């Protein structure tokens, strides 16, 4: 049975909302995290299929462009995609780095920050960032806000779509579909604490195996993410199909959406008030009666002098 898409009681952050979301139910819900251990991925794409199946997504059958990535990018109905990278290491050996690309569920989500529609993007107490299509207006601001290039706007309904971390399944105590389908245990799901612990164990293991730079990808620039990677080469995440090294909400988005906006809104209000109070004090700009008389007298004189001329 499919669960509720949204548990309204446990929304802790809400797009375009000035007042605080419920805060008192603190500690009631443990935050969750999905761990993607890139070193164990065999690129079978079972997770992709499971995602499509659970979420009722059927992307168009594309064309082979000579690589394993299929589809080649995220779309409104492909919420995750395996990205295959052929990497030559220092020893000159080939490493096949396969990264499952999907929403990272940032603790400080850029999409939520940028979204102008109240409640169209929410963050639950468990850390999942979800799009509420009901409130989505299709402006595409979330795309500009996201540091990972994840949201996609549908051509059919102009609404934004992305991985929900199977918020409906998680709400009912199940793991996300991709996690359930993974045959190698490359994708794990649990409480944040457990997953960070597990990631640590895996990293240590990889280091023992000679991957000196193995590490956890849990970028702090966005407050950490609820989807974390174990990478063999955590020192250069870019080789995993341009995974950003230090992702953060773009300063342009911060400047666009941050403090200046409420200030500008106040300034607009003040400008209108300034006009009103100027009128109260200085009064209207009028022509005086004397001026009027003067002009008319001038005119008459002019006309008379013209008439007198032969």
């Amino acid at each position, binding site marked *: 049975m499919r669960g509720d898409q949204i548990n309204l009681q446990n929304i802790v952050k809400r797009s*375009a*909302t*000035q007042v605080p979301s419920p805060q008192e139910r603190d500690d009631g819900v443990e935050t969750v995290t999905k761990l993607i251990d890139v070193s164990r991925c065999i690129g079978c794409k079972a997770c992709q299929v499971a995602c499509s199946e659970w979420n009722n997504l059927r992307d168009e059958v594309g064309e082979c462009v000579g690589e394993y990535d299929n589809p080649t990018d995220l779309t409104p109905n492909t919420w995750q995609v395996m990205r295959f990278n052929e990497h030559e290491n220092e020893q000159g050996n080939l490493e096949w780095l396969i990264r499952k690309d999907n929403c990272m569920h940032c603790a400080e989500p850029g999409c939520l920050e*940028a979204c*102008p*529609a*109240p409640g169209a993007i929410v963050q639950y107490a468990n850390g999942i960032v979800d799009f509420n299509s009901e*409130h989505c*207006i*299709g*402006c*595409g*601001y979330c*795309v*500009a806000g996201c540091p990972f*290039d994840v949201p996609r*706007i549908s*051509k059919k309904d*102009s609404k934004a779509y992305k991985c929900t971390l199977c918020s409906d399944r998680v709400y009912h105590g199940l793991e996300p579909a991709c996690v359930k389908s993974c045959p190698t245990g490359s994708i794990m799901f649990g409480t944040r604490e457990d997953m960070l612990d597990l990631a640590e164990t895996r990293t240590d293991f990889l280091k023992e195996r000679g991957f000196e730079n193995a590490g956890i990808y849990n970028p702090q620039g966005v407050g950490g993410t609820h989807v974390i990677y174990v990478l063999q080469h955590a020192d250069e995440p870019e080789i995993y199909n341009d995974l950003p090294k230090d992702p953060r909400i*773009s300063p*342009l*988005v911060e*400047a*666009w959406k941050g403090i*200046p*906006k*409420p200030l*500008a*809104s106040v*300034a*607009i209000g003040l*400008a*209108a008030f300034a*006009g009103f109070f*100027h*009128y109260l004090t*200085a*009064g*209207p*700009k*009028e*022509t005086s009666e004397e*001026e*009027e*008389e*003067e*002009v*008319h007298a001038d*005119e008459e004189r*002019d006309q008379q002098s*013209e*008439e007198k001329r032969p």
Partner: protein
Amino acid sequence: MSKPKPHAKSDPGILRYDALSRINHWLIAISFVMLVLSGLPLFHPFFWSLTGLFGGPTMTRILHPYIGLFMTLFFVIMAIRFFKVSLIKRHDIQWLKQIKDVLSNHDERLPPVGKNNAGQKLVYWIMVLCVPLLLVTGLLIWQPYFADAIPITLRRLAAFGHAYVAFLAIITLIIHIYSGIWVKGSFTAMIRGRVSKPWAKHHHDLWYEEEMEKERKEREMSKPQHQIMTGEEPK
């Protein structure tokens, strides 16, 4: 003889804005206000309820760019027609320096100005700057038409630019509207097209003199003709 009243029907005054200018101005004014009302909710959630004026949030998002295109079209026409009268002259600089006198209604201390004063010219030039910027940045973030094809940094820059250029334009608009309320006779001028002669002399003396010169010439041109045609002395 009773003294002529400034707005009496017997005094047609001077034509300040012909019908085309007035229609053009009000098409822009109405669409600009609609743009502000539909754009502010996307600017800050404080204004979200304004989406109700346009048939809901999604409709607001859909309509806003089209209203923008409509306004830009008519703005281009007005910008061309008003170009010459908006060139900034030396006396405009002096006028701006005395902005305190302007605001405190000490108009007798101000230098005489042409058809438009420096404030009106500034509105013109700020809008000439803002409207093309708003058009370009707006196109770059227009969903679903162009935005997807635009590199992400440029989209962010455009979204940022659109918001703050709009802010500048809105502040300018507020000042512009207030001036129309504050300076008695200017609102009527944009509605009916005409101003009284004393009004013209008071607010735009150089323009008034120009217009009077024109009238005088016209009278002189018509005088001999009148005499030739009728053989009578003009009254």
